[in-house]
């Protein structure tokens, strides 16, 4: 068998990054701040968004895109907290959202009436770290029911994120979780990571998160 070699040298993410750049431009032109929420399954992304929508939906004109491997359960939960459309993307087996899915979902969102967009990614701390969706920043959510070493086990995700939310703080008295160690581990991977400490269930720490969102939306709004 004679074999012919075809030189390719193509970045796997090249096509996605091109679409992501287009999404980012579209959002910037509309003055929309977009946060890509990434986490392992069960860290409380949907609960965090439910609380946030209840508190800020009308104030900040929030739109949401949710990604799930199967079902649109998260979108259905969030739709109860807002009158606006919650765009559900079912990935049919894929373990992450990609920029094309977000670009398509944006077509159904009135960006003229949106100032803050949340993209709730598929629960997975590996692949979503590699996929640029055109977001303003990634927000990694993890909870005190997970290990303090999560940032060391999944360094790329914590390196790619601009912000971290440590959630389920109300459970801390019942666990051995070491908050200082978790923060130190995360900052050893990404020294610039900014933390929020929340309980989406009780509301603890949510005010700092809300103030941060208000500040970011205000800064992006046309003068």
């Amino acid at each position: 068998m004679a074999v012919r070699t075809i030189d390719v040298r193509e970045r796997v993410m090249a096509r996605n990054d091109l679409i992501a750049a287009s999404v980012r431009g579209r959002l910037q032109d509309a003055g929309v701040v977009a946060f890509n929420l990434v986490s392992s399954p069960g860290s409380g992304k949907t609960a965090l968004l439910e609380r946030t929508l209840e508190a800020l939906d009308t104030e900040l004109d929030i739109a949401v895109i949710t990604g799930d491997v199967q079902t649109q359960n998260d979108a259905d939960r969030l739709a109860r907290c807002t009158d606006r459309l919650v765009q559900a993307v079912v990935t049919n087996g894929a373990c992450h959202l990609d920029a094309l899915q977000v670009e398509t979902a944006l077509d159904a969102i009135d960006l003229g009436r949106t100032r803050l967009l949340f993209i709730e990614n598929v629960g997975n701390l590996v692949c979503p770290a590699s996929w640029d969706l055109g977001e303003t920043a990634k927000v990694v959510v993890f909870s005190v029911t997970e290990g303090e070493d999560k940032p060391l086990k999944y360094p790329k995700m914590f390196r790619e994120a601009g912000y971290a939310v440590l959630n389920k703080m109300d459970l801390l008295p019942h666990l051995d979780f070491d908050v200082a160690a978790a923060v130190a581990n995360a900052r050893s991977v990404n020294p610039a990571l900014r933390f929020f400490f929340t309980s989406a269930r009780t509301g603890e720490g949510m005010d700092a998160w809300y103030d941060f969102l208000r500040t970011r939306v205000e800064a992006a709004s046309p003068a």
Partner: protein
Amino acid sequence: MALEIRRIAETRLAPDERARLVTVGLEVGEESGLEPENLRFCLAAVFAEPPFAAPRTIIERPPGDALRVTYLEVDDGRPDD
């Protein structure tokens, strides 16, 4: 990721070459966040379907976070020279 690699192979090969793809060459950087054996497993699944015929995967591990399809090898249908 595996599906995207399959898409790149589809775009780089003519339709009649796809079944004759024998090797997919990749660079998966040590800091790419990908575990080569996991990727190899996924690639075996997505390249098992026609028009492909289960090509082998050769993965290099350079430093850094590169993630690149470097080359494709196709059986050109001729006997060895």
